């Protein structure tokens, strides 16, 4: 820890100033202090930290060319650092991958796939949507001029398919908007009738009572005269309105019976508001999520990234760091520098020998990685658009191993399309991943057929990904327990000597690109502050 040694000498260094602030007012005061000095923690979620003052001939070795590694390299290089990335794969992006024609993948079980989608077709097998509030991701989308389009994350016309419910609606595809209209309509009716009779008066003043009933009439689309729910045009028509006298006004659909709606359990897809991470608006890059890492790669000198480099050993001492790796030719190689930013997933990193303290090693063992499956199915027609009038969005199911079927938000009205045949986690995902790729596709098609009669006859070819079977990830994303967040997480967020960890796993946005980017921003700011103080 020579950095500390240098700064402890009685001189009023910046480092000592920060340490004093920490001692007096904790981390927040220290951060406020750093903010005032231009280290920019306050803007940590929307823009990269400013890194003023020069890099003092410092070389940073970055392990992994996913978004955390690319972000670190891009920002540190701008600030004057020498950076070198070691990347295990033959391409950059980490989990940000799109499978398109010719894309290859071999998993730990030895299943080799070569994607044979038609030209122009693809599936995002890693991250696939960007919430509007992930301004860190959008910062680079803007910076690199990556064209984006809307990702339809909520479609009233999409089906809900719940097999495990009861009654006539169980095991039947139902439009989400119909379930929403009926569940909320009947609930509003019940509430409105009770409230109007004065049965809620303990909770409502007379003025509030009238306002509440007015609200419920609007919320549930109730009949004003008797506060009943009898359906609404929003849930759709049996005969669509149109020209002339026939179809003329059309005929509105009749609501499902209250008991049927409740026992179907299809209302599980409804909430008063979407979870923060799932809110509209969502965006996606045109042509595949890997347009984002491609933007970074273009902005870096080609020699920055050493591909096909498998890290074997990570060493550090008071003077610097050294990383030994196996290169593309299978030969042992090494690289030295002053600091390391290590973005290797903890699931993989814990199998690599690394000079860090015992508490740090113990903390790394404290996180789990999620088994996650995705499959892209190329369909020869876009029957979901043509026959069902569903333009993007998700088919929610309770079929184990399928979870969500999602329809593409790109290439509308094209000849063909690739849909997401399943998106599943945990034990369900582990189970399906034991199947060879063609069996996984059969499984997906068999279940999709329950929802769309055109499914099987349109299926052409598939590409599946099981993230827990990827040797460079061993899981989709980090899953912290509450206990792990308390004990292990804070330890790993701080450097161990000259080694800084970074990635989605060191954020509260686990599994999101924004988590990787913001973690990188935080770590490079810390590293830079240290270099400035040295």
């Amino acid at each position, binding site marked *: 820890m020579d950095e500390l040694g240098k700064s402890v000498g009685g001189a009023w260094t910046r480092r000592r100033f920060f340490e004093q602030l920490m001692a007096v007012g904790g981390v927040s005061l220290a951060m406020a202090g750093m903010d005032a000095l231009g280290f920019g923690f306050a803007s940590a979620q929307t823009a990269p930290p400013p890194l003023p003052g020069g890099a003092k001939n410092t070389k940073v070795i970055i392990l992994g060319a996913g978004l955390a590694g690319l972000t670190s390299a891009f920002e540190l290089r701008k600030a004057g650092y020498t950076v070198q990335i070691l990347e295990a794969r033959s391409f950059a992006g980490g989990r940000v991958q799109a499978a398109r024609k010719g894309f290859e993948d071999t998993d*730990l*079980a030895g299943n080799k796939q070569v994607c044979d989608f038609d030209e122009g077709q693809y599936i995002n097998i890693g*991250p696939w949507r960007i919430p509007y509030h992930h301004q860190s991701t959008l910062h680079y989308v803007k910076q690199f001029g990556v064209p984006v389009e809307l990702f339809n994350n909520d479609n009233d016309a999409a089906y809900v398919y719940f097999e495990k419910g009861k009654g006539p609606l169980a095991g039947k595809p139902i439009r989400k908007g119909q379930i929403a209209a009926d569940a909320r309509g009947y609930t509003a009716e019940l509430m409105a009738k009770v409230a109007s009779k004065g049965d809620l008066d303990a909770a409502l003043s007379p003025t509030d009572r009238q306002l509440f009933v007015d609200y419920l009439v609007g919320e549930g689309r109730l009949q004003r005269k008797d506060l009943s729910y009898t359906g609404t045009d929003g849930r759709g028509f049996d005969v669509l309105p149109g020209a002339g006298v026939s179809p003329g006004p059309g005929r509105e659909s009749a609501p499902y019976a209250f008991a049927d709606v409740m026992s179907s359990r299809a209302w*599980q*897809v409804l909430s008063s508001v979407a*979870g923060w*991470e*799932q809110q509209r608006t969502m965006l996606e890059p045109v042509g595949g999520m890997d347009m984002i890492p491609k933007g970074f790669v273009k902005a870096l000198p080609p020699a920055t990234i050493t591909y096909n480099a498998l890290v074997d050993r990570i060493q550090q001492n008071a003077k610097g760091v050294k990383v030994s790796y196996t290169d593309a030719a299978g030969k042992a190689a090494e690289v030295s520098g002053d600091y390391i930013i290590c973005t290797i997933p903890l*699931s993989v990193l814990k*199998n690599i020998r690394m000079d860090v303290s015992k508490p740090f090693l113990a903390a790394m*063992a404290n996180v*789990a*990685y*999620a*088994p996650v499956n995705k499959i892209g199915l190329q369909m020869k027609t876009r029957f979901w658009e043509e026959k069902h009038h569903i333009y993007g969005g*998700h088919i*929610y199911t309770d079929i*184990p191993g399928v*979870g*969500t079927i999602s329809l593409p938000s790109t290439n509308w009205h094209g000849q063909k399309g690739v849909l997401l045949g399943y*998106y599943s*986690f*945990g*034990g*369900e*995902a*582990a*189970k*399906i*991943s*034991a199947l060879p790729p063609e069996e996984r596709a059969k499984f997906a098609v068999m279940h999709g057929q329950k929802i769309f009669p055109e499914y099987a006859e349109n299926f052409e070819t598939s590409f599946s990904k*099981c993230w*827990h*079977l990827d*040797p460079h990830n*061993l*899981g*989709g*994303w980090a899953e912290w327990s509450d206990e792990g967040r308390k004990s292990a997480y804070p330890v790993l967020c701080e450097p161990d000597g000259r080694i800084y960890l970074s990635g989605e796993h060191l954020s509260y946005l686990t*599994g*999101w690109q924004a988590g990787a980017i913001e973690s990188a921003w935080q770590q490079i700011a810390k590293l830079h502050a240290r270099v400035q103080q040295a």
Partner: protein
Amino acid sequence: MLKFVAAAVLAAGGPAVAQAQPVGQALYNDNCAACHQRTGLGLKGAFPALAGDKLALGPVPAAATVLLMGRGGMPAFRNELNDAELAAILTYIRTNWGNKGAVVTSAQVAAVRARATATPKPRGLQAH
């Protein structure tokens, strides 16, 4: 000596083992083999081997807890599989690939399930 022990275990397990074997194997292949492999050898550095594994062969409550509640990267199976199925899987693991552990009964798994009070957060419909 080894042969003798194996014969004794088999005799003790007797018909229960023989009966549970095909069911346990099918359930294991279906639910566990993607990671731990059909060989029980796991994948080095990624998924632990169950052949010779101390936890799998140790006291039933600890082993059953892992299956019910999950551990590390391993998912929980308490909602996917019932006590008899979990017992069949545990028995299969403990009596194959050279493992010489005792048979596990549904009652043993049920007892562990009854004591397992921790209920992790329900997963949403989607993630990421």
